[in-house]
């Protein structure tokens, strides 16, 4: 689609469209219908609306949907793993794989191998006090079409503003919405099918494309990878699966929307994306969870496989429930994301992390093939009692590999934000190049911003540059904007949006606007 988002130096935003459109048509591009972004669009001005009435704005996505849920008993055991597998009607080999993962996880749990090196602090998770399977009832049979989907659930997505149905076509987004752990509906599967593109739930992929799943599952993130990846491998319930055939450029952006609904449940989705030789795909992921006083666990795994000459672009807007202002509840987000780039392939991660009480996430790229490229663009925001320890790993193995890391961390309230990244140049990675930039911004005197880069070079032809800075919003810039009539909060927002621009410009249009608004809402109360 031909939208363009061009923030200029002053942080103003212009919208261009190559065709006539009604402003109301744009509403579904945003996750909520009463979103501040809408007022901006409805005013139909070329600049962001200056009315910002954000007072008392809290988490907007905190509604709970009363959908009857099919719950497996709490706790984790081999029986639960078997139950999940049989509920999903999985073949024997996958059950075996899950059980191997489960046994490995038990060993790790006994050895107290839950990672403790990150700068996050949380009460121990009782892994026996979590629902590992929570499916909306009536979903055991996958819906044949959107008409079969529970209307109440569709309403949930309506509230979320997900462009399902024809909106999907209008938005150019094919959506695979994962509700708790079961994929609800996949739009545009047919249209994509004509190009040979497979975009479906993980469960369907196991049924319909077992060879592809078997060939690639666990090849980038093996079940032995880490504590949370082992847990995920044992109990993952659904997720998305994408396969782009050789030489095909996926014409639309693929999108998955994740939501945790059931109290006390964990979400363990698994995403597998394969771009075959010369293929291209841009994939988006969005997440929300309702307002709950107790914490929820989210331990997802994402594997990307970019075969020779292909490109995968993966964008995330993570807006899980961050907990209350006093630090109660919220999602614990422990995610393992990694991609493997073969010869001339490119993997690009873009993430905007505003949600979750705890974020523990390091989207990584293994630059295995010669001339492969890895990118990581991130904006992470922590407010109130949120904690984020996030970053990336760029493992350079092939020759002439190149990686770029741009990380922006914003800490406000009592939040703690850590960038933790590794750049590893293996001995065979001739002429590897890395540029890393990680900047932190502090708002208020109760927060923390930390930078922990690991730079490991074993080849003399490598060129590495790492820069980082930490500062607060400059008083001079604030004064300048306020002298021109902006409130302190608006001025902060404008500066922060401009500061994050390098990352936002990597996002597809709808996401970029959404991200800027998310920052605004998430920072509410941090200034002034």
């Amino acid at each position, binding site marked *: 689609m031909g939208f363009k988002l061009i923030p200029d130096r002053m942080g103003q935003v212009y919208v261009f469209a190559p065709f006539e459109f009604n402003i109301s048509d744009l509403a579904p591009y945003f996750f909520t219908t009463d979103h501040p972004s809408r007022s901006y669009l409805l005013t139909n001005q070329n600049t962001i609306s200056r009315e910002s009435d954000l007072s008392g704005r809290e988490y907007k996505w905190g509604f709970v949907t009363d959908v009857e849920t099919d719950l497996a008993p709490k706790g984790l055991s081999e029986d639960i793993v078997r139950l999940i597998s049989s509920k999903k009607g999985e073949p024997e080999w996958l059950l075996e794989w899950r059980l191997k993962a489960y046994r490995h996880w038990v060993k790790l749990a006994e050895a107290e191998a839950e990672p403790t090196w990150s700068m996050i602090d949380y009460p121990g998770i009782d892994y026996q006090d979590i629902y590992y399977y929570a499916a909306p009832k009536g979903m055991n049979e996958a819906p044949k079409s959107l008409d079969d989907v529970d209307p109440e659930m569709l309403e949930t997505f309506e509230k979320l503003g997900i462009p399902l149905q024809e909106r999907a076509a209008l938005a150019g987004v094919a959506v695979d919405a994962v509700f708790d752990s079961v994929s609800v509906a996949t739009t545009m599967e047919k249209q994509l099918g004509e190009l040979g593109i497979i975009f479906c739930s993980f469960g369907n992929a196991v049924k319909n494309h077992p060879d592809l799943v078997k060939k690639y599952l666990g090849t980038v993130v093996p079940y032995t990878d880490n504590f949370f990846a082992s847990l995920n491998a044992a109990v993952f319930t659904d997720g998305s699966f994408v396969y782009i055939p050789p030489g095909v450029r996926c014409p639309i952006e693929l999108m998955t929307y994740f939501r945790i609904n059931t109290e006390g449940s964990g979400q363990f989705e698994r995403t597998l994306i394969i771009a075959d030789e010369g293929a291209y795909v841009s994939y988006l992921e969005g997440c929300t969870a309702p307002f709950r006083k107790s914490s929820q666990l989210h331990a997802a795994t994402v594997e990307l496989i970019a075969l020779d000459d292909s490109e995968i672009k993966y964008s995330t807007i993570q807006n899980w429930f961050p907990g209350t202002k006093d630090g109660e509840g919220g999602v614990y987000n422990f995610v393992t994301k990694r991609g493997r780039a073969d010869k001339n392939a490119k993997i690009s991660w873009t993430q905007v992390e505003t949600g979750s009480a705890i974020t523990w996430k390091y989207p990584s790229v293994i630059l295995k093939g010669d001339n492969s490229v890895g990118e990581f663009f991130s904006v992470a925001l922590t407010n109130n009692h949120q904690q984020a320890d996030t970053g990336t790993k760029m493992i350079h193995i092939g020759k002439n590999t190149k990686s770029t890391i741009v990380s922006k961390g914003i800490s406000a309230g009592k939040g703690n934000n850590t960038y933790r990244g590794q750049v590893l140049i293996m001995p065979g990675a001739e002429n590897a190049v890395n540029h890393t930039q990680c900047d932190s911004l502090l*708002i208020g005197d*109760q927060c923390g911003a*930390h*930078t922990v880069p690991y730079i490991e*070079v074993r080849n003399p032809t490598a060129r*590495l540059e*790492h820069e980082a*800075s*930490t500062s607060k919003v400059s008083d001079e810039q604030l004064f300048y904007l306020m002298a021109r009539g902006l409130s302190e909060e608006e001025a902060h927002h404008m500066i922060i949006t401009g500061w994050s621009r390098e990352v936002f410009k990597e996002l597809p249009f709808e996401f970029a606007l959404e991200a800027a608004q998310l920052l605004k809402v998430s920072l509410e109360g941090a200034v002034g």
Partner: protein
Amino acid sequence: MTTATLPAAVGKYSEAFASFAEANSDAPEWLKAVRSQAWATFSELGIPVKRRGNELWKYTDLRPLAALDFEHGIGGSVSLDEIKAAGPWDDAWDTVVVVDGVFSAELSNLQGTAGLTAGSLAEAISSGTGDIETQLASLAGREEYAFTALSTAFVDDGAYVAIADDADPATPIHVVFVTSNASGSRASYPRLLVDAGANTLAVIIETHINLAESAQLSLPVVEVFAKPGATVRHYRVQMENELSYHLGTIRVHQLDDSSFNSTTFAVGAVIARNDIHTQLDAPGASCTLHGLYMTSGTQQQDQEISTTHAKPHCTSKQFYKGILSGKSHAVFSGKVVVERDAQKSDATQKDLNLLLSRGAEIDAKPSLEIYADDVTAAHGATAGHVDRDTLFYLQSRGVDEEAAKAILIRGFAAEMLDEFKPKALYEFVERVTDERIPVLLAESDALGTA
């Protein structure tokens, strides 16, 4: 956590500690308490050999050290000429010589500079000079760190330097730690305590030279107290032999408007660590930590540099450069912590490396931990071979490749060499660098043309 076995290598030192404690049973009570507490800490920790979850030693494997046996309490003799040949020397300096951890009056060269108390640490302990009772081991030795604990358990002699308030000794104070050529592998625990009074200016050169031909273990510990307005310029020259282990620690405590400026020149040892921590404990304190490390063969140089901004209006700067060749390995682990109330802090960190060969490895971890909002902190790190275009430029002017590389390496080092201000010291590090560059080049690889 329960561990059935003793922490690594504790048994290798326990007998020596027992006989050391017995031989020194007439020491002051406070000192005995310090030693036994330090021993208790070490015997809990052992040599940090764990390869997982051992963040402080993530890149440096100490298992070879833990496997070795070292003798204790054996000293040798050294001549002045040997010292002059192996390290920097200037007759005009006030020089304190410590051989195998023991102060040597005849080798020392003290000029009776006004306001300066310099000499034996053992003597300072027995006569209770200044604040030694409260100062000794207060910065190093009571923390949960194996090597300061082990060193403190054996604390006995070394050098003591105190500068009276408002004194301004014009000449540098040179403290030479010599490992003699006595037989066998020996452990020594050289110690230096610097008490810089208010509004003083002190220049301290700390030199480590090693005349032995076998593997030695040296665990030097330096504690520096900078009173309000004190300026301490500290230089460290580490010239151990290439079989030895040198795990040095410097702990600095800084009060109002004091300034601590340290420059390290590290070329020796098979495994060396230079662990500096500066505590900026009052407003206006500042520190600048510089260093140049050069490694070849299978050497490993590990810089563990940390600064804590505990109070507002402090400034810190860390800047290190490394040149690596052969199959050597260097680590730069920089850390700046800005505590909650330390507003208006200014911190910078920089680590630049030249990697000359395929087998060499550099691991850099410049980390920032910031809890105050009104701060500016920045860090940077680079690694790479000498610049191809520059090399080509020099070659196009008729300089052959080896000479051109040598010029570029020398130019890279020059910025750090310039930090060595005392003339005789500068000449020494310059000479060592110039001797070293051909060694580094001999083990380097040609630049790929891919």
